[in-house]
C-alpha cells in the first residue's frame, strides 16, 4: 500500500456500516491487501482440530493466508503451532501435509528441529560458526505462532501477539459453537479436509453461512425437488430465527410445535445414544434452545472465515433422516480466489452406524461434491467475476434486509429465543451487517509495526 491511508477506506467502511456494500469489495487488490494485513494479521484463525493430530508425534501443515504453519503434537502430547520456515535460510521445513514425525529436517542445509520446534542440530556448528561464539544454538526454535488458543479441540492462532484473549473475544458465540463441536464429552472427530480452489472472494461464503436463510429456498431448490432435504422450503426458512452473538452468527430452523430437547433432536435424526451424549455436555440454557418454541441451529459463521453447517438430509432409500456437521474455512488466496477447506465432524464416540450415515449425509450435501455446495459456489464465482469491472465501482449493493429506510428493524427482536445475543425471526441481513461491522472495524485500523526477530544472535526470541 503506497499511501499512508488507502484511498477511500473511510468511505467504504462508512457505506458498509449503513448496510450498503461497494460491489467491488468482492474483487479488489487494494481491499484484499488491507484484509491480509489488518484483518487476517489480527484475527483468530482456525487451523486444525486436535483429533487430526490425535497421537504423539502427529502433525498437519496448515495456512493462515500466505503463511504456512506446522501444527504438531509433540512426543509428550503437547500441541504446538510454528511458522514452517527454517530460521536459517527460509526453506519450508515440512513439505508434507500430514503425518507423524519426531523431528523435521530442512532439506536445504539439514537443520533439524524437534516436533516441539526446538532446534536440535545444525551441521558443522563448530566448524562453520565457531560454535556458540558465532551462532547461539541454545534455545533457538522455529518461530511460534504469536497467539494460540484451543476450544472444543479446535486449534486457533493469531498472527497478532496482542490478540484479544480468545475466550473473551469468543463471548456468547461459545453458546452456539457447542451445538456443532461440543456434542460429546469424548470430543469430536474431524475428517478431511477436502480442499478445492474456487474463483470466488472469501467474504461471500463467510457472509452466506452467517445468516443468509433467504437464498436457501431458491439456490437449493433442486435439493428439495429430489427429496434429499425437505426443510429449505420458503415458509420453513421464514420461521427460523437468525441470531448473532459475539463475533459470529447463524441461522436456525423452527422445530415442529411442542418440541422438547429430545424430540427436537430426534426429529432431525439423532439416535437416542447421541441425544444422551448431547444432554450430558450441553448446559440447561443450551438445551432450552431446542425446547418449545424450538429452534435447531443450521449454518453459522465465526468471524472472519470459519463456518459451520448442520443439516439433516435423507440418507437412504428407506427414508432415514441423518444429521451431519461440516466445518469449513474460506481461506483467501487472492482477491478473487478462495481455497475451501471442508471437514466432516462427528462425536468421537458416536455409534459406527451413525458415523457412517452422517458421513454419507455430509458427502451428499456439502464439500467438493456436495449437492448444496455445488450451487452455492456457482453463485459466488459469478459475484466475484461481476465485481471485477468498472461498473461495480459505482454500485452499492443492498445489505439492509430487515430494516426500514430510517434504519429501524421491520420486526421486533424475537423474545422467545432461548440463546444469547440478538435474534430476529424471518428473513433479514442482520447477521451479514454484523459481520461487515466487524470487517470494517479491522480494515480501518492500521496494523502496528512489529520488530523483526533475529536468530542465533544471542537473544532469546520472545
Amino acid at each position, binding site marked *: 500500500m503506497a499511501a499512508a491511508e488507502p484511498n477511500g477506506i473511510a468511505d467504504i467502511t462508512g457505506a458498509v456500516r449503513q448496510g450498503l456494500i461497494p460491489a467491488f469489495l468482492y474483487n479488489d487488490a487494494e481491499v484484499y491487501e488491507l484484509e491480509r494485513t489488518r484483518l487476517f494479521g489480527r484475527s483468530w484463525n482456525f487451523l486444525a482440530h486436535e483429533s487430526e493430530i490425535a497421537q504423539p508425534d502427529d502433525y498437519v501443515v496448515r495456512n493462515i493466508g500466505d503463511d504456512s504453519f506446522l501444527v504438531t503434537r509433540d512426543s509428550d502430547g503437547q500441541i504446538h503451532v510454528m511458522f514452517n520456515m527454517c530460521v536459517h535460510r527460509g526453506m519450508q521445513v515440512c513439505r508434507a501435509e500430514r503425518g507423524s514425525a519426531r523431528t523435521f529436517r530442512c532439506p536445504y542445509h539439514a537443520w533439524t528441529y524437534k516436533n516441539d520446534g526446538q532446534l536440535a542440530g545444525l551441521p558443522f556448528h563448530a566448524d562453520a560458526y565457531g560454535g556458540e561464539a558465532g551462532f547461539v544454538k541454545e534455545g533457538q526454535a522455529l518461530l511460534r505462532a504469536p497467539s494460540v488458543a484451543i476450544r472444543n479441540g479446535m486449534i486457533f492462532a493469531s498472527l497478532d501477539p496482542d490478540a484479544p484473549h480468545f475466550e473473551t473475544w469468543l463471548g456468547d458465540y461459545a453458546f452456539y459453537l457447542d451445538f456443532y463441536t461440543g456434542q460429546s464429552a469424548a470430543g469430536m472427530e474431524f475428517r478431511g479436509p477436502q*480442499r478445492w480452489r474456487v474463483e470466488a472472494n472469501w467474504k461471500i461464503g463467510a457472509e452466506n453461512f452467517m445468516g443468509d436463510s433467504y437464498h436457501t429456498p431458491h439456490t437449493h431448490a433442486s435439493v428439495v425437488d429430489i427429496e434429499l432435504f425437505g426443510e429449505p422450503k420458503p415458509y420453513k426458512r421464514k420461521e427460523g430465527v437468525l441470531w448473532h452473538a459475539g463475533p459470529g452468527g447463524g441461522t436456525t430452523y423452527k422445530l415442529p410445535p411442542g418440541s422438547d430437547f429430545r424430540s427436537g433432536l430426534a426429529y432431525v435424526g439423532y439416535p437416542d445414544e447421541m441425544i444422551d451424549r448431547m444432554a450430558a455436555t450441553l448446559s440447561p440454557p443450551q438445551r432450552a434452545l431446542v425446547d418449545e418454541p424450538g429452534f435447531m441451529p443450521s449454518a453459522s459463521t465465526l468471524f472472519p472465515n470459519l463456518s459451520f453447517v448442520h443439516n439433516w438430509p435423507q440418507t437412504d432409500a428407506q427414508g432415514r433422516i441423518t444429521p451431519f456437521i461440516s466445518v469449513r474455512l474460506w481461506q483467501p488466496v487472492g482477491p478473487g480466489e478462495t481455497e475451501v477447506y471442508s471437514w466432516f465432524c462427528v462425536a468421537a464416540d458416536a455409534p459406527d452406524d451413525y458415523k457412517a450415515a452422517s458421513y454419507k449425509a455430509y458427502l451428499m450435501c456439502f464439500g467438493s461434491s456436495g449437492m448444496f455446495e*455445488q450451487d452455492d459456489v456457482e453463485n459466488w464465482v459469478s459475484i466475484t467475476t461481476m465485481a471485477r469491472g468498472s461498473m461495480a465501482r459505482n454500485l452499492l449493493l443492498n445489505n439492509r434486509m430487515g430494516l426500514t429506510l430510517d434504519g429501524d428493524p421491520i420486526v421486533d427482536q424475537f423474545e422467545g429465543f432461548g440463546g444469547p445475543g440478538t435474534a430476529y425471526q424471518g428473513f433479514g441481513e442482520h447477521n451479514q451487517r454484523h459481520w461487515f461491522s466487524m470487517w470494517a472495524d479491522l480494515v480501518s485500523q492500521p496494523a502496528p509495526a512489529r520488530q523483526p526477530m533475529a536468530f542465533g544472535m544471542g537473544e532469546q526470541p520472545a
Partner: protein
Amino acid sequence: MSSGQSPAPLPYTDERHQMAAQFLTEEAHLLDTSDFEAWLGLMDRRIRYRMPVRVTAVKAADEVDVQTMHHFDEDWYSLRKRVQRFQTDYAWTEDPQSRIRHHVSNVRTFEGSDDELIVESAVLLYRSRGDRTAPSLLSAGRTDVLIPTEEGLRLRQRDIEIDESVLRTQNLAIFL
C-alpha cells in the same frame, strides 16, 4: 494403483479387454452427452463409487494411512440422487451446462474372480464453463470392477485416484 488380481494384463487381442475398453468409451460418451439416466443404467445396484481425498505425505509413509476423507463415496441411492438433481430445473451449477469431454486412455484389463474384469484406466476431464478462457482439468486414474450380465458389462465398483490434493475446479458436479 493396484495391479488387479492377475500378474499381467490381458493382451489387447483378448475379447474381454476389447469389451472392457469399449464399455469405458461408451460410458464416457454417455457422460459427455449428459445422458445420465443411461449412465446410471450401466451401474450394478451394489455399486461402490469412491474417490478419496489425496494427501501429500512423505515418501516413506503410505499415503493411505493418512487419508481420512473422500470426495465421493457413493452407493446406488446417492448416485441416483445426483442424477435426479441434474434432471431438475434448478441445478444452477450446470445450467448453462459446462462443455465437458472425458478423455479415457491407458486401459489395462485383468482377469478377476468369478468372470469379473478388473480394469485400470486414466481419465482426463476437460470442463469449460461460460466464457471463461481457463478450463477446469481433472486428471485421475481409475480401477473398475466390471461384471458380465445378460445386458452386457456393468460397473460394480470404481475407485478413483484423483491427481491433485487441492482440486482446481469449483465443484464436482461431474462424474469421473
